[in-house]
């Protein structure tokens, strides 16, 4: 089974096939040639209506770049993005515009994504106007009030400016703006990272409710693995521009196969001061995406690396019970118990 055809579920609303995004980077200092930074290097996944796929992995592994190329905030180097059965990566920006409505993004820092000089009303009405969703003024007004209610903000918030809100409230405004476009997919890039425990819980619960009521698919990028474990259906783990493991929530959290996934899970801090921590400490530095290691890209830090890993790149291989893993040692008969 090829990586490109790995499908997590039945009718996908969003499909990404062999997506790549390379940046040309200048040489740094004497003796350093200009190079190609492979931020995303052959990523494939699919996302079904009403489901959540979480994208996790080391800082700098390419998660935001995947999101930005799907939304065409960055032009992909190669690969396909298919939205509800239709390829969108090769559309011109003007042909893409009407389809943009169907896929919306919520960012980490709600402050920088809202116009500080625009009252909340205008920020939220913008997509409704742009995509001509309202039938007249009173419909627009009714929609705005419904959205405020939906995200748990008082109606009078519409007349206020972003700086008058707390982080959690601004994140609700960002979600209301995304919802205003009536999307099929919402991409959340670290959307709850900056929030406190209780507000984070409120926002995640809100996203889950919206998903249930409107069948919205979520691509959820997060470093918070405990939150991911609570709310996701599927997980894809990235390392250095590629997916190294995918699986259902149960499979991935209960029997992680890839040594990187296991290291990641073991590094989550436990909220108990005297807890017995069996942390897998990764040795070595994160390799550069400009000159990725030969063979398995994780071999330089892998606790169970064997000779073959240094030379031969492990393909992302489907596992019998669903999911897939790219590791020579995590064969079909079970995880590497090294």
């Amino acid at each position, binding site marked *: 089974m090829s990586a490109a055809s790995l499908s997590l579920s039945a009718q996908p609303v969003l499909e990404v096939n062999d997506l790549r995004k390379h940046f040309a980077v200048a040489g740094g200092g004497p003796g350093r040639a200009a190079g190609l930074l492979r931020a995303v290097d052959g990523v494939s996944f699919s996302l079904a209506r009403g489901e959540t796929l979480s994208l996790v992995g080391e*800082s700098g592994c390419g998660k935001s770049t995947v999101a930005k190329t799907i939304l065409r905030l960055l032009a992909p180097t190669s690969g396909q993005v298919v939205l509800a059965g239709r390829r969108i990566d090769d559309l011109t920006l003007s042909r893409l515009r009407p389809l943009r409505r169907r896929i919306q993004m919520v960012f980490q820092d709600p402050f920088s994504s809202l116009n500080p000089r625009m009252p909340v009303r205008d920020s939220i009405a913008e997509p409704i106007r742009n995509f001509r969703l309202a039938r007249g003024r009173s419909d627009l007004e009714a929609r705005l009030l419904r959205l405020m209610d939906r995200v748990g903000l008082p109606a009078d918030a519409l007349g206020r400016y972003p700086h008058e809100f707390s982080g*959690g409230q601004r994140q609700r405004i960002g979600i209301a703006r995304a919802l205003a476009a009536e999307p099929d997919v919402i991409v959340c890039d670290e959307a709850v990272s900056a929030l406190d425990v209780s507000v984070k*819980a409120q926002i995640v619960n809100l996203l889950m409710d919206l998903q249930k009521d409107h069948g919205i698919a979520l691509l959820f990028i997060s470093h918070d693995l405990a939150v991911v474990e609570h709310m996701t259906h599927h997980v894809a783990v990235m390392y250095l521009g590629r997916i190294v493991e995918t699986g259902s929530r149960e499979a991935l959290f209960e029997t992680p196969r890839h040594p990187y996934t296991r290291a990641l899970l073991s590094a989550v*801090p436990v*909220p108990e001061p005297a807890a017995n921590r069996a942390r897998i400490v990764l040795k070595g530095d994160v390799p550069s995406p400009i000159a990725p290691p030969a063979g398995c890209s994780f071999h330089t830090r892998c606790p169970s690396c064997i000779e073959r890993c240094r030379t031969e790149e492990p393909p992302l291989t489907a596992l019998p019970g669903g999911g897939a893993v790219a590791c020579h040692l995590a064969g079909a008969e079970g995880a590497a118990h090294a």
Partner: protein
Amino acid sequence: MSLLSVENLQVHFRTPDGVNRAVDGVSFEIGSGETLAIVGESGCGKSVTSMSILRLLPEPQAQFAGAIRFEGRDLLALPDREMRKIRGNAISVVFQEPMTSLNPVLTVGRQIGETLRLHQGLDARQAEARAVEMLSLVGIPEPERRVHAYPHQMSGGMRQRVMIAIALACSPRLLIADEPTTALDVTIQAQILDLMRDLKHRVGAAIMLITHDLGVVAEVADRVMVMYAGRKVEEAAVADLFRTPRHPYTRGLMGAVPRLGVRAQGRAPGRLAEIPGMVPSLKTRIDGCVFAGRCPDAKDFCRLHAPALESKSPGHLAACHFAPKDARPA
């Protein structure tokens, strides 16, 4: 004597629609080599407290009262010129939002080097060499190349590590870290926490750590101060606080933390626990307990009378009329 001693700090903002009592009478101390974590709901005044120590708030709008003594000197009374010598040197800070605190038109190497040239008198070459060293210390791959990169060419987590490199460059005696690891994955986070522990042991630095992640608190803090609506509502040694949280807000907070391994704990995944209700506005004067509006155990008495911060057991302070108190006098 403590390295830092904050005495009855008040920070009130004048805004067009009234006074915002962002910090309303908060006292605490941090000793050398000690890590104090500050936790509390969004908007409760954690960042305003840390910005006050560095005197980075806009002054006519922000009105201060109380004292902030660092090595015996009151920072609130210090002339700007003296304050500039301290900032980034004896006291340094890692902010919450790396995107907005880095200069977009300067390479990250220049920005790390700047601090070293200013405070340690290094020349341009020495400063760059040290910048490369700092980048590698915070785990950035290919530091010799990245030292020439601009902030937009880095991922969110790398920018955050650049901020940490700047803060650590001069080996500060007090490091204020405001959500230093929120933008980082857990493996890099573990590295950064190690770096902070190392700074503490090597130079005996004190650390004031602001975070929403109680897992991080459990790993690195010695003591924890819990804030709510501009006040300190509880303070205790870390193990004591996690074992016997005394304030109902702290108990709510602990209960709302999602933990890894929900299935192993026999709970079905799904909705996360919330603390019902919202924080009160800081613009209206609250006479009673600030948490009464959301407290599951609040009585009429709580709405009328503000509880004093009192010792409930040795070294454990809480501001709650009904918080259990140990029988023996503290």
